[in-house]
């Protein structure tokens, strides 16, 4: 394989990684603050994809319909997430992990069926939006603008999140709650509000991931389960609760997929698990995570 091919493969790997990053980082963020492993996170992502499809088909007469739905779908998903948090998740904080696991599993079932009720079992998709529907051609390299857009939006979101947590007042509150809930509470932080906010932010990210996937893929029942397992793999590689970890994990995941298929195409099915097991054995808390106390 020539250099050109390798560059293209590198770009594809990054594109794969950045899409999954948007989903995984939400999962990691929620776990970091709420200590809840939200199994329904990928279903939230699926909801984002369906909503993106739905809004853009409703607005099909309006120009730039995709961009409107890219704006609205994640917000709707975030509102739905806030509703879930206030109504259900709030009741199970501090309970055993099993309870959280089952509650969020129940949400997978419910969200999956609600999508089916609303949009049927057919496949749907969204047109690639102007001006990203063409490819960039550069000295024999062909690469779609949309994928470039994805590759760029990943780091953008990462930097945005990182600075939000690092430099803003809001971020310091979130960090305080993450570090010690009781202490933050004693200091007058409205902990439940922070929880709701972080959960909504996580859902917004998943919804954004879903909306961004819609133009390059099929929106269909069952699209959540595959992504869920990939997200687990990524957050475990990167370290649960770490934003940088999710970024690094996604990057590794994307690149291993892209280059792995050049070397061992028959193993594509197992790449993720192999990565995950290796990391868990050498560094159980993930590459960027902190060891448990």
């Amino acid at each position, binding site marked *: 394989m020539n250099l050109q091919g390798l560059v293209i493969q590198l770009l594809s790997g990054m594109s794969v990684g950045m899409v999954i990053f948007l989903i995984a980082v939400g999962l990691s963020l929620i776990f970091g603050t709420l200590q809840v492993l939200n199994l329904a996170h990928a279903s939230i992502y699926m909801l984002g994809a369906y909503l993106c499809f739905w809004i853009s088909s409703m607005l099909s007469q309006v120009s730039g319909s995709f961009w409107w739905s890219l704006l609205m779908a994640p917000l709707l998903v975030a509102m739905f997430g806030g509703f879930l948090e206030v109504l259900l998740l709030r009741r199970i904080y501090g309970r055993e992990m099993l309870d959280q696991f089952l509650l969020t599993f129940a949400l997978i079932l419910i969200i*999956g069926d609600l999508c089916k009720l609303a949009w049927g079992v057919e*496949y749907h998709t969204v047109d690639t939006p102007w001006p990203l529907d063409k490819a960039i051609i550069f000295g024999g390299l062909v690469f779609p603008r949309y994928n470039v857009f994805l590759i760029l939006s990943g780091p953008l979101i990462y930097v945005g999140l990182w600075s939000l947590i690092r430099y803003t007042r809001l971020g310091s509150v979130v960090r305080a709650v993450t570090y010690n809930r009781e202490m933050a509470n004693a200091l007058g932080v409205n902990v439940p509000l922070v929880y709701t906010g972080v959960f909504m932010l996580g859902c917004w990210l998943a919804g954004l991931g879903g909306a961004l996937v819609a133009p390059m893929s099929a929106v269909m029942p069952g699209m959540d389960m595959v992504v869920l397992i990939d997200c687990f793999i990524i957050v475990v590689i990167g370290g649960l609760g770490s934003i940088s970890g999710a970024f690094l994990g996604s990057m590794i995941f994307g690149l291993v997929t892209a280059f792995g298929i050049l070397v061992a195409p028959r193993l594509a099915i197992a790449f993720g698990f192999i990565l995950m097991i290796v990391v868990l054995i050498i560094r159980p808390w993930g590459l960027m995570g902190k060891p448990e106390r």
Partner: protein
Amino acid sequence: MKKIVLIGFIALILSFFSIAPTQAAEPIKFGFLHTLSGGVGQVYGVPDQAGVKIAVEEINKAGGVLGRPLEMISRDDKLKAEVGVREAKDLILNQKVHWIQGIVSSGIALAVSAYCKTQKVIFIDTVAQSAATTGEKGHRYVFRITTNTTNYARSIANAAAKFWGGKKVFIIGPDYEYGHRCKKDFMKTYTGLVPGAEVVGELWPKLGTKDFTPYITKIMSSNADFVYTSLWGGEVLSFTKTAWPFGYFDRVKMAGQDWGNMEGLSKMTRKAYPKGVLGGSHYPWWLLDNPINNVYYPKFKKVTGMDAGLAAASGYTTVYAMKKAIEKAGSLDTEKIIDALEGMVIDSPVGPLKIRACDHQAMWPFWVGPVAFTKEFSWPHITDAVAMDPPDKGYRTCSEIEAARKAQK
């Protein structure tokens, strides 16, 4: 409150066991066992259910079978083999159905087929495609009224040889037995037609992959003459959407059996579709002009609003086939019905079909042609579609089947 819940629970459990199987009175019961929930299976199961319902309504309105109405008992296999077998037992032992039809997953089909064999109840596969079901693992009680993987491979290989005939073949397929079997069957036929053809590269994305970017770039940087793909269902759409902006379909020739079916194509627009791909279809309803299809398809479209109907066409046909067989047998005796079905020619939306006596496989044709947009329709579809003529050519011969069954033992 607690007491009410307690009593409710007990009552529920008691009621469950007291549901005595109703005595086989008037209606002729049959089981519809399909994936109606969970994952991709329902994309086939749900329309199939609609097709079967239409057939049952039509038949009952016209006076039923042997003067008795048909009753469809619908069950969900949840795309899990153990649930499939559990429901098959329920249908046969408790509901006393006369036959079972449906099933999307080949694994579940094999399991239900094996169970039906022990119970001597007819099972008709209407969606699952594994050639083994009526081939190596075939028996007296299993039928199939749809195509199978052999027909896929042969039809696609024929078309590929006719249209292109290159020697360097690239393979991409989902990483499970279906994908590998398709590759094997395809290459076997294709090397027969184009001697010296070889596989120059292969990719096996895991089942359900959403983002095909690295696979597409890898294929584009290979120098194969064409690509054979066994990707199916939603992956057709996902692959197309990702591949289109790369200019993939202008640069790469590709052939795949599921790429002409409405399940994947009906939602595509001129902005991204598998342009020029040699696609196959079980049921290209827009090309068919026969009295049954002209009545059935508009009805199906009206009821479900869907364009995608390959499973439904099979389900619909199957109910009519059983009606014809029961009437020919003159009774509900399973053995007599089987004798009637063997070699029978049935009517279907794709034209008359022969059910071969040796392996109980309906000689369902499979159409292959390049995918394109025409002025007639608002979605891409296969054009210049040709099926093997006669359709028997797409299937293994009776002696091949016999040999395969012997080898199995």
